[in-house]
């Protein structure tokens, strides 16, 4: 399983703060993103950053390991 987390405005648009995506060998970050974007288009309109296991991920062709933690994030507004 790949654990996908959402926070703040993205979580609100998804209607959940966490979803599970089934793992398969060789699954790419962009495939997880595409699959979720299809079911939650409004949420992904505001997604600007992606993190994998707590680190910024810029390369969407990154292959994911089983049990990865993926987060799709909107622009930060802390402080």
């Amino acid at each position, binding site marked *: 399983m790949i654990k996908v987390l959402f*926070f*703040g*405005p993205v979580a609100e648009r998804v209607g959940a703060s966490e979803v599970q995506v089934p793992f398969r060998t060789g699954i790419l970050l962009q495939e997880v993103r595409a699959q979720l974007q299809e079911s939650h288009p409004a949420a992904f309109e505001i997604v600007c950053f992606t*993190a994998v296991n*707590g680190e910024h991920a810029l390369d969407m062709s990154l292959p994911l390991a089983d049990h990865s933690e993926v*987060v799709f994030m909107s622009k*930060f*507004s*802390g*402080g």
Partner: protein
Amino acid sequence: MKDAVRIQREDFSQDEEVGALRTGSKRMGGIATFTGCARDFSEGREVTQISFDAYGNMALAEMRKLRVEAIAKFELLDARIVHRVGVVGAGEQIVFIAAGAAHRAPALQACHWLIDELKQRVPIWKKEITAQGDEWVTPHP
């Protein structure tokens, strides 16, 4: 002593943070701090509370990186960063930054740099709670 970098629900004390900062060195000639507060008014609406959501682990890791970077970049003797999460009332404190250096200019510059970078780089989101409804804040770049 409390950690130099923290995310917490409860309020913080400037005296306690500046006291902790100063224990590190008696060569600290200048200490600059920045405290961000919840304003009761935003874009024409009266704000009663602000609610914060954070990607806790990554936010804390980014704040720790910021502290280390600022210490190196401005030759600080020490620095501290505290950010609250949960619900904060209008007028309450949200974020605290402190930078201590031998002289005043680097302390003040580091403090400004830290709050600017924190807003860009730390995964925390704020929602304004008003009588007309709640709204997630969209940062103006």
